[in-house]
């Protein structure tokens, strides 16, 4: 089996357990002072890479590199991935707001320099739910993509991926190098043990800037307003069909 290098993209997001609140300016959610952690789908992606290595051996999966784009605190997330078992990390440092296209462009440059055989990404980040970065990256690199993967396996230079689709499960194969984006099913990401957290501090962490990579970060989207969804109203028990028709016509206005 030829040896592979896997690149996994991870993102620091508001922790999934936090109850987010819209900020007073209605421009976004409150991020100050709330707990942040690795995007849950990215945890799965890291875990997938680690399991591929455990299954096929270190000769086949010779290196797992993690990457994150973002401000200084993104390094916390990279350290978590290193503590889970990744070998080295790359921090693309920027304080600018990053849209999926910008991230895809940054990743394109890193892939060009680092030449991994396989890129694993979470299918979306729970911040904006965009589901775009993996697909845009595949487009920019002209690589095959297998999205919404619940199972990944490698056989020589071919990936076999089980995808979750509306009709059920679809199995596809793709030639490496390829992009895979992961869903939440089936595998539990491992916890980083205290000894591994200590070891992670010694693993390499390289910092680069978008300028180093020759990428200009531009925002093409402007958020106009962010509001909370309307509070859920209780259900009503109706007395007759006439009442139902009346409500559908006059209150819900669907007839």
């Amino acid at each position, binding site marked *: 089996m030829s040896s592979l290098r896997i690149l996994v993209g991870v993102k620091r997001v508001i*922790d999934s*357990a936090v109850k987010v609140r819209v900020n007073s300016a209605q421009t976004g959610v409150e991020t100050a*002072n709330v707990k942040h952690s690795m995007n849950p789908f990215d945890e799965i992606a890291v875990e997938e890479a680690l399991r591929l290595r455990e299954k096929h051996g270190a000769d086949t999966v010779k290196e797992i590199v993690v990457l994150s784009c973002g401000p200084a605190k993104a390094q916390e997330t990279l350290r978590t991935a290193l503590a889970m078992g990744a070998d080295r990390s790359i921090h693309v440092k920027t304080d600018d707001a990053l849209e999926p296209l910008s991230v895809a462009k940054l990743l394109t440059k890193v892939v060009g320099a680092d030449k991994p055989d396989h890129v694993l990404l979470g299918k979306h980040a729970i911040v904006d739910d965009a589901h775009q970065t993996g697909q845009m990256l595949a487009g920019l690199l002209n690589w095959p993509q297998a999205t919404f993967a619940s199972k990944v396996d490698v056989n020589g230079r071919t990936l076999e991926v089980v995808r979750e689709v509306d009709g059920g499960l679809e199995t596809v194969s793709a030639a490496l190098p390829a992009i895979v984006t992961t869903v939440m099913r089936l595998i539990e990401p491992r916890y980083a043990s205290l000894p591994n957290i200590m070891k992670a501090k010694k693993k390499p962490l390289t910092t680069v800037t978008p300028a180093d990579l020759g990428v200009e970060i531009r925002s093409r989207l402007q958020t106009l307003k962010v509001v909370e969804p309307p509070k859920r109203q209780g259900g009503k028990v109706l007395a007759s069909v006439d009442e139902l028709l009346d409500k559908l016509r006059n209150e819900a206005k669907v007839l």
Partner: protein
Amino acid sequence: MAGDKLCLAIDASGKLNAVSADDVKHFAEAGIRVLADSEIGPPHNADMFGRYAGDARVALAPTSTAQVSQVLSYCNERQIGVVVQGGNTGVPGGALCQRGEVLLCLSDMKKVRHVDPVAGVLVADAGCVLADLDDHVQQLGYIMPLDLGSRRRCMIGGNVSTSAGGLRYLRYGSMHGNVLGVEAVLPDGRILDALFTLKKDTSGYDVKQLFIGAEGTLGVVTAVAIALAPKPQATQLAVLGLGAFDKIEQAFVRARQGLGEILSAFEFWDRRCDEIVVESMHYPSLLKSAHEFYVLIETRGSLMRHDAEKMSAFLDALHADGLVDESCVLSAPDAMDAAWMFRSNMAAAHARRGCMYVYDFSLPSQHKPSLLGAVKGHLSSLGLYGAADSPVLDVTIFGHIGDDNIHLQVIAREFGGAVEAAIEPWIYSWVGSHGGSVAAEHGLGAHKGQFLKYSKSAAVIDTMKDLKRLLDPRGIMNPGKHICQA
């Protein structure tokens, strides 16, 4: 002898011998470390807020219970006073030498003897620093059941001897509940091994309880067995801004109901406290606007999602009912640390502003709201507060409101004089007559023993004195302080 009345006055300080050079020689020959003069300084002879002064001339640092026993035997024989000192972070100056006593420093007795990871029990020497013990047990998935602002300096022996309260009393309870066993040396040198490590033991008088809160007056605590608390998996803080004192109490009742078992701290402070911390410590205020009162709530649990849900519902209801004017939730570790730093350094911030008189009262609910007004009114009526050039600069309250415990601060331009005479004993009398305790968690220390009568009956005080006479007939332990003043 039977029939003889044990009639030593409870205050033996007049009869004791000051420690001498010969005594120092004896200790050195016995292999007990004697601190050099250059080693004895402000950490030993001043309290944290500069109100009291000690003048220890001879300080010993034993390394074992056996050595402590030797020291006490000798001092009992020669009628030399002994003051025990741990981190010397006690607020009312109970660990200061003021009458020519020997200072017994336990800082060299700092071994962790044993941790039982299944039962969650720690046995440690009295000189172990609280923060070090916390770090140690965290590796096993536990935390110490108490936390104080002075955690990096205070020692567990002192925590036991002062029955320390602190920031998490609300959740983990008092030292009387968490201490499972004590090893102490009695004033005559006998070693009392009451180091039991099991949680349930109803067999005879619970002797260890005497030492919890005894402030070194009944013997030297040399080791402690303490029940640990499980390390929380999920922690979050909420900061509230409120307009009136009674809203704090309503918020507390709702917190107890709505947050229930995950509630772990409920602290409050007033507007002036907030300003003083911002001015003296240069920490930013935790909320965007200024409020009459602030509340800091902490929850600890085992599932973040569950706790976040409860907190969200609790805060929504407070806002909907107009009980709070502003709130924020903190779950990022550095934000939570900053909030606790703000609250923990409140006393230190006051001490920087001026000469701080700090009082520590428990008061029943119906009387808490009137404390601040009563003190300000009293001081104003004597012309000591209210004008720009008044001798009293500030009067503030903050504390563990969830435990009915309020700290009252009176900041004066200097210690002593008219201000001190105006506050004491007036404030103790006020608190006593309103059903409160004159010392909720700080203890009696160097001079509060004389005010004990305002919250304890004569019969209770007499029983305390009987116990003191029984265990320390020569009155060598912490003479002239504590119950000796009552």
